[in-house]
């Protein structure tokens, strides 16, 4: 399709952002606020804040299956049904509409709607430190990050001041403090474990999770009301999402155009200018191809989809995909592992309970391989995330007995217990990859993505260590029936995919430079998970947001200087 004259004008913007999830939402807000007329594309439907949260206020008995999903959903859409329930299934992509190839088992959970997975994310917000940014260089693994903590620190401040992150300052070098709203609070059993850990281990502490749930009203959004139903969408705006925060802010500038139902099939490369001219879109309502043009393009479609778009964008200059001179596009796929941990029961404090449903747990920041001389049989580290509660009816449902005495047992709070698991770093391996399979197509005629991923020795050794240290901390704090576990979940299960278009200093070994700018095509920027050179062990979204704001600032200044 060729567009010229006025039609082309209507399809021309200052900037295009591909994908409206957590990083795309930020790109849209930043670019719009800097005065750029911005087109925000998403492959799914629009989800308007509050209005489209259909299930947000329903009671358990309002759901036909009380939260369960019918068998047919599990049979036809095992991934979607495996990650969702009756209340939030609408925010996860259907397997049958969006197939992909698992060369090894890999669960690719997607949120195909405006807002993407920012509607259903876990909301944990942790800064990286130089322990993370320097790790590749120190160990000679993969390539060096082109940035250090000092390059991103101010941008963490910047995004936190808008997101609204509740948390406690702990003064740790490996987990820098942020600009926090008041922290959520630990309950009795968590405080007990925290005290025990503090008294027993030199370099460990337990703190409340740092989360994008508001402990007071913030930027026009209401405080979290402790319902713990975040994944349905929050009618009070109690947690951060593109829908509740960045998209409304971008819209308020008058510079934003949102176009849902738009699958980007490729980025159009202009050989004469050596720049990207725009994007080609499949309109999923009409099946038509449409082109849009802009001076700056941000590809934030999420790690795997972004890599796929680049690989599909072939030209004479880039026969292996846009910006893929290094051959690294699609490689180095990472996902945190979160399979190993321990749980135990605490016999005591029976006179205490809690009220309300706090939407987060606790964090034990990384305590392994902090010191360069330390050796634990594996590289890098993990943090421990967990929660303490009293056993409730679902945990007690199959206790022995029948009749009034059984009823009494299940309607009273049971003993306190703690469940906790390690969220561990995954090293970048070149042969953990995403590729296109030209022999199979989706319903829009686009080649399917094939994913080949596995955890290796380093991750497996780390899981063993997680089991040991978690068991030790619980036993040491007087917990009983302490059981360690390893769920052996496959890649993708933690939903922290990253690494498929890594940043680096050298164009021959990386795709993006230190400003998330494509080495080879200066007006293309990528600041979703695909830009990550290593994975650290922190939940990554906050870092994507900070990198995005920083990249937008750089992109606009380069535009003004006439460099792009």
């Amino acid at each position, binding site marked *: 399709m060729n567009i010229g004259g006025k039609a082309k004008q209507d399809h021309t913007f200052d900037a295009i952002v591909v994908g409206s999830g957590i990083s795309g939402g930020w790109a849209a807000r930043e670019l719009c606020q800097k005065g750029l007329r911005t087109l925000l594309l998403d492959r799914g439907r629009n989800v308007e804040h509050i209005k489209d949260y259909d299930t947000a206020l329903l*009671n*358990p*008995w309002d759901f*036909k*299956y*009380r*939260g*369960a*999903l*019918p*068998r*047919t959903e599990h049979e036809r859409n095992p991934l979607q049904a495996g990650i969702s329930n009756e209340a939030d299934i609408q925010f996860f992509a259907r397997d049958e509409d969006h197939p992909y190839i698992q060369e090894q088992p890999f669960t690719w959970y997607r949120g195909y709607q405006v807002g993407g997975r920012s509607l259903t994310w876990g909301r944990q917000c942790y800064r990286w430190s130089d322990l993370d940014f320097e790790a590749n260089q120190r160990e000679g693994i993969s390539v060096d990050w082109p940035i250090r903590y000092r390059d991103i620190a101010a941008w963490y401040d910047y995004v936190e001041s808008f997101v609204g992150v509740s948390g406690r300052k702990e003064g740790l070098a490996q987990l820098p403090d942020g600009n926090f709203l008041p922290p*959520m*609070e*630990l*309950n*009795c059993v*968590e*405080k007990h474990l925290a005290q025990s850990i503090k008294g027993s281990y030199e370099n460990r502490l337990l703190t409340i999770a740092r989360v994008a749930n508001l402990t007071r009203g913030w930027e026009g959004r209401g405080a979290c*009301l*402790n*319902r*713990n139903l975040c994944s349905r969408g929050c009618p009070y705006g109690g947690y951060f999402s593109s829908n509740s925060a960045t998209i409304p802010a971008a819209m308020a500038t008058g510079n934003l155009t949102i176009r849902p139902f738009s699958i980007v099939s490729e980025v159009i490369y202009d050989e004469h200018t050596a720049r990207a001219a725009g994007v080609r879109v499949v309109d999923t309502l009409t099946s038509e191809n449409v082109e849009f043009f802009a001076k700056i393009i941000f590809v934030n479609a999420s790690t795997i989809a972004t890599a796929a778009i680049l690989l599909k964008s072939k030209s004479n200059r880039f026969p292996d995909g846009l910006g893929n001179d290094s051959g690294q596009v699609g490689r180095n796929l990472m996902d945190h592992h979160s399979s190993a941990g321990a749980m135990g029961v605490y016999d005591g404090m*029976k*006179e*205490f*309970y*809690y*009220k*309300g*449903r*706090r939407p987060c747990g606790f964090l034990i920041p990384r305590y392994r391989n902090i010191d360069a001389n330390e050796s634990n049989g594996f590289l890098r580290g993990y943090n421990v995330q967990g929660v303490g*509660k*009293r056993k*409730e*009816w*679902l945990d007690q*449902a*199959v206790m*022995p007995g*029948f*009749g*009034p005495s*059984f*009823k009494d047992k*299940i*309607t*009273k*709070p*049971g003993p306190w217990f703690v469940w906790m698991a390690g969220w561990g770093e995954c090293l970048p391996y070149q042969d953990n990859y995403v590729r296109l399979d030209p022999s199979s197509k989706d319903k829009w005629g686009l080649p399917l993505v094939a994913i080949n991923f596995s955890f290796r020795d380093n991750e497996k050794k780390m899981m063993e260590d997680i089991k040991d240290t978690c068991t030790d901390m619980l036993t040491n704090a007087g917990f009983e029936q302490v059981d360690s576990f390893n769920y052996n979940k496959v890649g993708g299960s933690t939903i922290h995919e990253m690494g498929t278009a890594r940043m680096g200093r050298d164009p021959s070994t990386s795709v993006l430079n230190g400003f998330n700018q494509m080495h080879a095509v200066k007006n293309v920027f990528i600041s979703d998970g695909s830009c990550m050179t290593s994975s650290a062990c922190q939940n990554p979204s906050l870092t994507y947001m900070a990198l995005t704001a920083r990249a937008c600032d750089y992109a606009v200044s380069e535009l003004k200087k006439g460099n792009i």
Partner: protein
Amino acid sequence: MNRRKFILSMISAGIFGGVALFVFKKWHFSANVQVSDLAERRELIASLADTIIPGTSSPGAGEAGVASYIVLYLNDCATENERSRFLSGLERVTAYATRKFDAPFERCNQADRIRILTKFERQSTFGIAILDKIRDRVFGEPFIIQLKRLTVVGYCTSELGATRGLAYDYIPVVYEPCMALTPDQRVWSTN
């Protein structure tokens, strides 16, 4: 493989095989039941559920309509294997009640009903957690565990169960991390 290891592995294979066969006989061969039986068994299901969670000072499973939930769940959500295991469990309850108390379960008195269920519960475990786990992994949970879980879920997510049997806190507003537990405090119905 040395001799000691060989003997040990033969013993464990023997135990596992024995368990498997025993369980297979018990849980599989009695599964010649039809899906259409489900609706006809609603009265039985209702009295089983109400025996597990009877009306006391708060509503019981009967009043909370738990049987409808169980039938709906088994029809639409359960796998075929889960459903037939459940249905054959119902048959065995009826057969046992008739043999032992000369009446189908629904018409037994409360004390006899509890005797029947207690007998099924005792039979549902080997008394060794790991063997139960292997059994559940290979054949699925025994009928009595299915029944209990469905009854508890159905009750605790029903309006009557959640709001009057348990404590329902629709919009908590604040989180109180450590409050003193009063004697009449019920467990929260959602978490």
